[in-house]
């Protein structure tokens, strides 16, 4: 099959491209240039589209003897991912930009263009298993990226190849080293690629400006402090609240109200939620009949919790959790899994969290 390997310049996508070549595919490498202003990222070694990363990707492609191109998706990325990220925070929600990038860029703009140009699929270095149209967790639980892929539909998954799902990150690095790739020891990227210094609050402050508002204690309704922007907070957040309440019990962010810019905080007993409402879901395969039992993961790297999946309002879902969870933030994705220890938990689909309640 003619396939397009998306090559970020990191070790995962380098090995994924190499494995696609080994599998006998006719592979063409593409580096996605996503920043509209490459110069600002030149100093940040972890910018996803820095000149160095394009160079690293090209070096691997040359070693593999495959054609290599750079596709400029800066406009699409800025609009679909960066602006969405800013707007979501401005609305008091906590978005996941990697998920949005997979949904709108890698497996939409790039896949569409690849297919129009005659490629059968897009190969990426994501850590997730994909076989027979079934998306499952990686064997490497610590590196599993199925959460940020759960938004993909069956059509999108049909055009995707993830060669790394059945190996550990350590094995990926070993393969890279065996092949003499210079990126074998390159550091993992943890940051949001368009915020290379890792300072999300600073980035949002530059974009949204100072937006002071009150911090309110849920138990008393009293204003206990001031903040300079509600976008600096995430539901479930414990550290860095910048307020002192009488007793020494830890406080958590319970809610963010964007219009009045009110950040509500409360003690742990108020922070747990038992019921989650989502936007209309997307499914990776056949639409399951409601209600059903599943495990739900409520944020990247979160611990899955058993739940009952039932019909909600306006086409959304109502998830009744078996045990209360903290840190369920509107804007995050509620990803549903069918547990399977042998073959890897199966991703069923996801819905964006709209609200969470203590009830249930």
């Amino acid at each position, binding site marked *: 099959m003619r396939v397009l390997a998306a090559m970020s310049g990191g070790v995962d996508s380098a090995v994924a491209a190499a494995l696609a070549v080994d599998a006998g595919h006719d592979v*063409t490498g593409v*580096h996605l*240039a996503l920043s509209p202003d*490459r110069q600002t990222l030149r100093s940040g070694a972890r910018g996803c*589209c*820095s*000149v160095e990363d*394009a*160079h690293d990707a*090209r070096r691997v492609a040359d070693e593999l*003897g*495959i*054609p290599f*191109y*750079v*596709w*400029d*998706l800066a*406009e*699409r990325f800025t609009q679909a991912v960066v602006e969405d990220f800013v707007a979501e925070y401005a609305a008091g929600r906590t978005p996941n930009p990697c998920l949005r990038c997979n949904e709108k860029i890698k497996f939409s*703009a790039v896949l569409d*263009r690849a297919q*129009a*140009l*005659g490629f059968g699929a897009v190969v990426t270095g994501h850590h997730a298993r994909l076989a027979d149209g079934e998306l499952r967790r990686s064997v490497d639980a610590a590196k599993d990226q199925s959460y940020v892929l759960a938004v993909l539909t069956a059509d999108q998954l049909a055009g995707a190849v993830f060669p790394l799902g059945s190996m550990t990150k350590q094995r990926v690095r070993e393969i890279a080293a065996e092949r003499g790739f210079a990126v074998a020891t390159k550091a993992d990227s943890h940051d949001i690629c368009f915020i290379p210094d890792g300072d999300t609050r600073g980035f949002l402050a530059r974009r949204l400006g100072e937006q002071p508002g009150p911090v309110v204690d849920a138990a008393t309704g009293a204003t206990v402090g001031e903040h300079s922007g509600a976008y600096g907070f995430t539901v479930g957040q414990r550290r860095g609240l910048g307020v002192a309440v009488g007793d020494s019990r830890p406080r958590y962010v319970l809610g963010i109200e964007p219009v009045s810019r009110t950040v509500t905080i409360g003690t742990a007993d108020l922070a747990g939620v038992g019921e989650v409402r989502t936007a209309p879901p997307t499914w990776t395969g056949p639409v399951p009949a409601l209600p059903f039992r599943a495990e739900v993961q409520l944020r990247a790297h979160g611990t899955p919790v058993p739940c009952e999946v039932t019909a909600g309002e306006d086409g959304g879902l109502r998830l009744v959790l078996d045990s209360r969870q903290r840190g369920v933030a509107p804007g995050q994705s509620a990803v549903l899994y069918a547990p399977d220890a042998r073959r890897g938990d199966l991703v069923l689909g996801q819905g964006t969290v709209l609200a969470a309640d203590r009830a249930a």
Partner: protein
Amino acid sequence: MSSPEAVYLDHAATTPLLPAVLAAMTEQMGRVGNASSLHASGRTARRVAEQSRERLAEALGARPSEVLFTGGGTESDNLAVKGLFWARRDADSRRRRIVVSPAEHHAVLDSVEWLAKHDGADVTWLPVEPTGRVTPEALRAALGDGEDVALASVMWANNEIGTVSDIAALAEVTHAVDVLLHTDAVQAIGQVPVDFAASGVDALTMTGHKLGGPMGAGVLLLRREAECTPLLHGGGQERDVRSGTLDVAAIVGLQVATTAAVATREERADRLAALRDRLVAGVMAQVPDAQLNGAPLDDVIGGADPIGGPGRLPGNAHLSFPGAEGDALLMLLDARGVECSTGSACSAGVARPSHVLLAVGADPDRARSSLRFTLGHTSTDADVDALLAVIGPVVERARRAGMGRR
């Protein structure tokens, strides 16, 4: 990936080394000797370098002392723009304006912009015609009385769209107001008549690898009276304007290539122009809405040989394919073994709308949808046939993929 069976239609990027060049360079590389040394080995090396200088001067209508060897076209452009600016300004502090065409190569543009940003230069951008040409009238108007101008720079032939300037007419204008003219003739030599003395320009950039010589070897022709401040300081090998041990093997290769390219120019130009015309006609027959960029194929510029000649490089076909993206076209052609170019790319390799096409008034979509095909000394009818066999379906497929950014 270039392969032996690839159809190579990118001679303006670089063109295959001539066998005679390889032989001359191999012979020289087998000898020891620094051309600056006083002993016999040094004298032998110097003799080869100086003989090359004389033969190059002869081929280009210059005096041997006007030939400065450099590391290539980019260095020659940097040396001319910065060196002439500094020398003229230092002699007369009012002279800090640079008059330049916006369709120049980045080696000129970025040098000018660096001087503007870091060294107080004022830049006057020349208007260009839709063909990319600068008219003598426009240059005259931009120069004014010329008293505040350090230099003017207009390329002899454009590397993207192949438009040839009427350089002699432009030099006449600059000289009337005592302004020095630099021209980047990297693409012109061996393609159109180039005579340094007859042209009247003060400084001329050339490089070896565009005409069958080695990469990393170039020349700045610099009129004897022109003062030029060095970029590279050291042994002062080249008239104290450029230092560095002479790469004698590269120099002899550059000379053999240039002499051959100039000697065979007319015959080759006629052959390539006919081939190019067939390429354009063939593409237009399959893609009727394709647009030719630059000057008409049969364009001529004023004056008789050695000054006049074709108004468009004989091997250049630059076309826009509305609704298709240059990137996609290039990739699809590459996958079918046909190698060409989209024009400029940034350091990360991102295709940018060509500054040349934008300068001649094309909208960004047209600029992004263009491909450059350039023919050279090894081009054959079979190369053109191979392109024509695939271009129709390739354009159709690229159009289905659309303009990727939308």
